[in-house]
């Protein structure tokens, strides 16, 4: 009898040990970012942010006892690579959600696949076209160019700058901005008297700026991501153009100031509150999240975070919060995300079945660069 009890006890102990070792299974999420190549400035902070969050979560007990694992893949800004990465994550790694990609083009390339496979995709790219028309499984956390342009138009109107020139980079970001400007400026009462473009590898924009100067605008609006806009600022300074220069949220990073040097002074642009976190009011809902993120990022990586990393923060937190409530079933995560209100880094999100971006133009504040530093305009 005693022997039987001992054997039973041992077996029971073994059983407990066995199940607790394999007990709580890991929650797996996938991430696709442009970590190498020309768009590394977007992908690297996004990847760093995701890894930071995963580490934090696992240190504090995971998600309801489950370990969180993020499988980060690089698409190098290439649509086919993004496609293959998504396939791998969904089919081989069996993730329950995908964060990213970093760019509009790559996001569109994987959106159809994620939708068909019924895995939630939360993109960190700017293009409004990613979620218009809404696909049930596709979301995005970066602010839309629709709202950025709206914010800029508000500013122009408020300062009586109704004859402007518009200059954009010939990439998806720039042209999407141009598209929005064409759509929204008539209603806002702003007349665009010159439309010009420049390639993202152009060496100088003097020709375009000379043409613009000839038309005598009250302000120049420049829409693009680095390094083009920095060159525009420099060339304008070299040509001694004193026209007010307003840019897009694509320059909301230190790199712009570094590249443009003195020419950055006076440039005005819409940005998420992250870059002016020390100036926002105490009762602002985003303040706590922003300060927390900035501190944690600085502590781990020794440098300030930027808006791109912020988009990744929002995306991962959306998934994590959903998983805390419903576990790792992709369909349930999707339903949960669609209902979420999140005070995030890019803004205060309010998702709904008809709005998979969840942000409005109040996700932006207008910022001006003064002496190499950002100052919020009220």
């Amino acid at each position, binding site marked *: 009898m005693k022997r039987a009890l001992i054997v039973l006890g041992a077996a029971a102990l073994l059983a407990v040990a066995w199940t607790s070792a394999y007990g709580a299974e890991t929650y797996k999420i996938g991430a696709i970012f442009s970590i190498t190549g020309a768009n590394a400035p977007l992908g690297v902070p996004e990847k760093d942010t995701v890894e930071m969050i995963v580490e934090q979560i696992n240190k504090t007990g995971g998600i309801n006892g489950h370990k969180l694992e993020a499988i980060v893949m690089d698409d190098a800004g290439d649509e086919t690579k993004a496609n293959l990465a998504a*396939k791998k994550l969904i089919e081989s790694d069996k993730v329950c959600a995908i964060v990213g990609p970093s760019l509009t083009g790559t996001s569109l*390339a994987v959106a159809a696949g994620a939708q068909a496979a019924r895995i939630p995709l939360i993109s960190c790219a700017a293009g409004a076209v990613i979620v218009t028309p809404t696909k049930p499984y596709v979301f995005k956390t970066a602010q839309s160019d629709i709202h950025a342009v709206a914010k800029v138009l508000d500013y122009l109107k408020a300062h009586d700058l109704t004859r402007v020139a518009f200059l954009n980079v010939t990439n998806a970001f720039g042209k999407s901005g141009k598209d929005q400007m064409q759509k929204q400026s008539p209603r806002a009462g702003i007349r665009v008297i010159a439309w010009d473009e420049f390639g993202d590898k152009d060496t100088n924009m003097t020709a375009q700026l000379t043409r613009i100067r000839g038309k005598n605008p009250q302000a120049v609006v420049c829409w693009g991501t680095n390094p083009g806009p920095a060159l525009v600022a420099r060339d304008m300074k070299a040509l001694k153009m004193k026209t007010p220069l307003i840019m897009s949220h694509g320059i909301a990073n230190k790199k712009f100031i570094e590249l443009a040097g003195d020419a950055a002074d006076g440039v005005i642009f819409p940005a998420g509150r992250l870059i002016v976190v020390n100036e926002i009011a105490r009762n602002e809902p985003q303040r706590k999240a922003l300060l927390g993120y900035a501190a944690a990022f600085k502590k781990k990586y020794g440098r300030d975070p930027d808006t791109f990393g912020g988009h990744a923060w929002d995306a991962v937190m959306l998934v994590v919060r959903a998983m805390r409530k419903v576990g790792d079933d992709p369909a349930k995560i999707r339903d949960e995300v669609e209902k979420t209100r999140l005070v995030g880094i890019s803004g205060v999100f309010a998702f709904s079945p008809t709005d998979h971006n969840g942000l409005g133009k109040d996700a932006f504040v207008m910022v001006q660069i003064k002496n190499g530093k950002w100052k919020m305009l009220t």
Partner: protein
Amino acid sequence: MSARESPASPTSEALAQVEKGHLDRRVLGLSRPTWPFVLALAVAMAILPFCFNNTYYITVLIFIGINTITAVGLNLLMGYAGQVSLGHAAFVGLGAYTSAILSTKLGLPLWATIPAAVALTSLIAYLVGMPTLRLQGHYLAMATLGFGIIAYIVFKQWDLVTSGTSGIVDVPPLSPFGRTYAETPRLFDLQTYYIVWAAACLLLVLSANIVDSRVGRAFRAVHGSEVAASTLGVNVSGFKIQVFVLSAAYAALAGCLYAHYVKFVNPEPFRFTFSIELVVMVVIGGMASVWGAVVGAGTITILSELLRSVGDYDVIAFGVILMVIMTFMPQGLTRAASDLLQAILRGRRNR
């Protein structure tokens, strides 16, 4: 083949060229018909999907298949007509965009848009090739370089037609077997896989036949010596143009398959970088036989995927591998493999 005549006369020179040629069909130690090998490939590809339990590998193979189709066409141009195209991505893009535009904006069915895309691209190739292929030398290379970049810029800027950088979304999928197949991801991948590889195998057989035919032997003669070939009564520029247009048609078909598989077309996949990748595929695989295209497309696509995990080093590795293969195995991997095999067999026989 038969012994050479006494040298000196241009005709015998030309004949010697044709016999020895730049084409060596003794791949894997065999001569004559290629179709049994294509059949073997077809059977292998047919069985392959059932060895994997997830569709990631099938997707990789689909992309390899699509690239193979373009590479086979480019191989004909480079290996047989001896010309280089540094802008072939443009023809892939033209095929993709035309079929996507016709099916989304005009709502036409795929069995109409795909042939239309191939036809339009072939016409454009004819217009580009005609003026330059009349001349000797590498003018086609430069013309295709320029044309490829112009095409990319037009894709990006002609918003009205191509939707510019935002691209064309919701391109209808390939669905010859009905909507259920097209809408279930696993079935869609499988179905596309078979369509792509069936097309690739058919085109391989077609290309091998062209190579073997009288026309094909004239091609090889052209590559060897344009002067000699014309003394044989071969219409040199006519053939060069024909091959160029054919290679563009192959590329256009590949583009259509891409568009209706990924269901999204934007300008980025058709940059100059991709044109270079295509040339690399053909050259690495080996220009001497149509198999080079398959080997090259497979190698480059798989290499890209494998190197991805090495992160920052993948570009360096790619460049190094390219230079090494070109320096030590300029005839390409297929030829190097076949030489190796022959050396082994010869070694064994001598023992």
